[in-house]
């Protein structure tokens, strides 16, 4: 499963998903290429997290295919699915830390369960990741003793501790103030440059999230609209994208000149 620079690591092909009578995904198609950052934006309740859960194999599509590293997730057995997921790191929206474990144990868990490393080696890896997140003094604390921003950083440390090939971020800055959000974005930049992972981000933190992305797609009407560079996304003629951009970015976007101004303000 060696990754080439432009290899497609994740492909959604005409994915449909219904919950009862409600069709949440109505023919979603997307390609995520290795080493890139793909951002899925959209209003709440449009199914952004549902797409992420399909990529993670936590949900199965009613029709269509989700192919990860060349393997159709729906055709994969439990072991194959686990092998695929061993290349994943996930930062959940509500972090999903194990609240009965300390910060150290939370970050050490994937190493203890998935590798045969000694406790001494695990300590080295965990301390390195905690230091990277600026949490070196908080290993003994429990998640409930940390602020929301610190919990996100612990979640990120846990997601990165096995140096995954693909990292998924589900609303990474939800519930954080501006400075904490910027801190998470800074850590994202730093860790991606260092570990060179492919990132898939679900977010509604527009326009800030555009700065992180190579590809932006809008989830609307059960489909992904766009799948283009952030610059092209903001200039798109697609009425759904145009309407979303105007709603989220306001009158600052109206011409190419003003778009440049917007980037300068970020």
């Amino acid at each position, binding site marked *: 499963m060696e990754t080439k620079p432009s290899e497609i690591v994740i492909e959604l092909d005409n994915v449909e998903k219904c919950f009862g009578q409600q069709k949440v995904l109505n023919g979603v198609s997307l390609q995520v290429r290795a080493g890139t950052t793909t951002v899925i934006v959209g209003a709440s309740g449009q199914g952004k997290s549902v797409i992420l859960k399909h990529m993670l194999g936590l949900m199965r599509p009613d029709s269509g295919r989700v192919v990860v590293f060349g393997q159709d997730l729906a055709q994969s057995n439990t072991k194959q699915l686990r092998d695929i997921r061993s290349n994943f790191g996930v930062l959940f929206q509500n972090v999903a830390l194990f609240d009965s474990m300390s910060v150290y144990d939370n970050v050490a868990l994937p190493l203890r*369960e998935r590798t045969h490393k000694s406790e001494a080696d695990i300590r080295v890896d965990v301390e390195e990741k905690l230091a990277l997140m600026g949490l070196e003094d908080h290993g003994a604390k429990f998640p409930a003793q940390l602020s929301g921003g610190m919990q996100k950083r612990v979640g990120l440390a846990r997601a990165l501790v096995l140096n995954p090939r693909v990292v*998924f971020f589900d609303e990474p800055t939800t519930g954080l103030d501006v400075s904490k959000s910027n801190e998470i974005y800074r850590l994202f930049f730093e860790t991606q440059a260092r570990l060179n992972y492919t990132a898939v981000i679900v977010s509604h933190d527009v326009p800030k999230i555009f700065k992180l992305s190579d590809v932006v797609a809008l989830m609307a009407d059960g489909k992904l609209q766009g799948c283009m560079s952030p610059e092209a996304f903001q200039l798109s003629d697609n009425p759904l994208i145009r309407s979303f951009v105007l709603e989220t970015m306001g009158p600052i976007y109206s011409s190419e000149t003003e778009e440049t101004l917007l980037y300068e303000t970020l």
Partner: protein
Amino acid sequence: MNLIATLGAETLRVLELLGRFGLFLLTCLYCAVTPPYKIAPIVRQIRFIGAHSLFVISFTGLFTGMVLSLQGYYTLAKFGSVGFLGAAVSLSLIRELGPVIGALMVIGRAGSAICAEVGIMRNSEQIDALECMAIDPYRFLIAPKLIAGLIAMPLLTCVFDVVGIFGGFLVGVELFDVSAGAYFQGMYSSVGWHDIEMGLVKSVVFGLLLVWICAAKGFFLHLERDGGFGAEGVSRTTTSAVVIASVSVLVWDYLISAVLL
């Protein structure tokens, strides 16, 4: 027509539920008997299910034995057979009341906690997080509880029986002046290995039932028909798990008794 459709849908729902729970049990048992074996989580769970239940089991056992002795004494006295008090108390406890009341107590104390713990982990995406980290939640989370239930329940039942027999002794011998020798001789001559075996078989089955039902209810919280989300969902599911596990214990108690008697 509507009635038939509803009946059909309900039947399918129950079959799906049974299938889901059955697969859950088989997966957990498979994880419990295949490597890698990790002792520490099992010991932690034995401590939680077993050691932490010792007080409530001892307390319940003591009073169950005492009330058995009290009731038994007045009943046997009518037939002039108070000498059989030891046999009556010990047989009732070892064959029936020890495993059943012990299991009901452990369901209330540990079963509800297991269901709530797993349910909250499901609600807060911790189980999803395990799966995304390629960690098998059945092996990591449920299998140690299942093994611990199978080990702890027979031990707790033994404690219940011994304390219950002592409680019966306190009331029968100390309060009603039944001869201590007659009390223990009656027990010695009437209780056989077969009775102890029946009690132990029941306790193992009940240990399996309580962990299986309570853990599965929490694990599949998100699939509950009336919605398992939020604190209310966890509370409702936990209540339902305790009720189902308790009723299952009573049903299986009858079935095992019918087979082994």
